[in-house]
């Protein structure tokens, strides 16, 4: 089956060690909060990513890496929450909740949210 190997990850470095581990491509134990999204979950979130791209001038896309900076995380969370209030479809909300938790973590620790799609 095509793309059965494809995985998408959200990563939030939790501390300086996590930042270093992420930059050095090290799968850190306990220093990076990581959430896996399936391709279908990524697709369910495309509207959110489109809004983030417009808001922050970034290019979130599949088979690409992008980052929501620590400074932009709070605004990104506001945009996500607006979409969650507007879009009540279960498939979207399930995926959005995973994204919300990761983003809330980024806001909490004032760290970036890395999107490895």
């Amino acid at each position: 089956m095509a793309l059965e190997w494809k995985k998408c990850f959200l990563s939030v470095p939790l501390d300086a060690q996590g930042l270093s581990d992420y930059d050095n491509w090290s799968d850190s134990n306990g220093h990076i909060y990581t959430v896996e999204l399936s391709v279908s979950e990524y697709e369910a979130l495309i509207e959110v990513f489109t809004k983030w791209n417009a808001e922050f001038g970034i290019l979130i896309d599949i088979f690409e890496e992008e980052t929501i900076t620590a400074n932009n995380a709070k605004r990104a969370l506001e945009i996500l929450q607006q979409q969650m209030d507007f879009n009540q479809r279960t498939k979207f909300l399930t995926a959005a909740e995973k994204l919300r938790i990761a983003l809330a973590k980024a806001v909490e620790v004032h760290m970036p949210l890395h999107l490895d799609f």
Partner: protein
Amino acid sequence: MDTKTDYSSNVSAMKQIADIDAGLAKELEKGAERARRFHSNWQSVNINEVVEKFAPGAVAYQKGGKIIFESSDHTIAIIADAAGGYLRIQDLTSKTRRALYLTLDGKNAHNVTIDGKTRGRTTEEYEIATHFRIKKREEM
């Protein structure tokens, strides 16, 4: 039919669909915008040669705005962007959570060796080292 024709045929088909599918149009625009921003940094490649080297005999399939050539042993995927006219080479055997993209000589692009010294690439360097502009037919 060579790989370039396979790729170009898929691109044409996707662009036609994008005329009536706003979602696909948005996906294609991302790749086009990435190319506008960064293409001057990217090395140009002959897609026939890249696929022959890493995924000989692969037949393209589409996902979003991408056209994918997967090796028959499922160890390498060449991900070509339909609107941006560029490709990346992914190592599917990597055990890291993050996708591992390769240089044209098939090496892990995380590191670079210059004058015998190896260091990690910065994010910007990694992006440049792992994106390749697909040559037009007349350039091949």
